[in-house]
């Protein structure tokens, strides 16, 4: 991931559904830690891949995205439960994450981010002699 992707996009730019109010949703998230990385998975159905932005600064990860509107102007809505126009969530991960070594993949509406630890923070097994 290059630094170009690590910029904050202003959420005021999100207004997907025309006249409807903006609804920024906090995506449901799973997170686990392996010996070498943190893996964060966020449910972001309908997010436009090119609008997904990640920022990592001082151990804080911010994720945001815009959602493709699916209501055309000539379509009448009979029943509505959806209305998400964007996603935004902030995680405090602490120090020890390698800023230059972050992988992200968006698949089936789920964004999975793998943040590698700086080697010194990996647990070390110390043998007793």
């Amino acid at each position: 991931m290059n630094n170009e992707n690590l910029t904050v996009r202003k959420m005021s730019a999100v207004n997907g559904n025309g006249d409807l109010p903006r609804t920024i949703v906090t995506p449901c998230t799973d997170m686990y830690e392996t010996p070498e990385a943190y893996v964060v998975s966020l449910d972001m159905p309908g997010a436009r891949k090119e609008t997904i932005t990640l920022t990592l600064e001082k151990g804080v990860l911010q994720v945001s995205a815009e959602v493709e509107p699916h209501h055309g102007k000539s379509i009448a809505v009979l029943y509505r439960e959806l209305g998400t126009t964007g996603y935004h969530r902030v995680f405090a991960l602490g120090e020890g994450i390698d800023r230059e070594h972050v992988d992200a993949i968006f698949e089936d509406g789920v964004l999975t981010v793998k943040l590698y630890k700086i080697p010194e923070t990996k647990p070390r097994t110390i043998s007793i002699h």
Partner: protein
Amino acid sequence: MIVRFERFPVVQSLPGEVVEDLLGDFIDRRWGSRRATVPALDMMENSSELIIVAELPGVTKEDAKVTLQNGVLTISGERKPRGLPEESRWHRTETEAGTFSRSLELPMAVNASAVTAELKDGILRIVIPKAEEARPREIRVN
């Protein structure tokens, strides 16, 4: 007379589900509920089609199923659980894996043989052509 569409007639509606609807997403987020395993959806129409859009994050095409029988549309499938690699530990688990099913009675006659469904980026889009008799018809005034 125009009546505001308050609630789509769900095929099976138990009192417990009504309570969940009232409390909405708050329950889903705080404690999880059966509703969290039911995909949220919108239903729309234009002059010739009925369009249903549902959120199915984490569900692959192979694990999603759409059926239409006797005017009842059912969206079902399974979200496979996420495995935890060895020597790893969870920090948080908010998503819910497992099977889901949601049925809707369609509000008009449709052409069941020409239904299309597409699942992309966690969004299922079902397009159902209306039956000829359900389409608006212009009547000439003499």
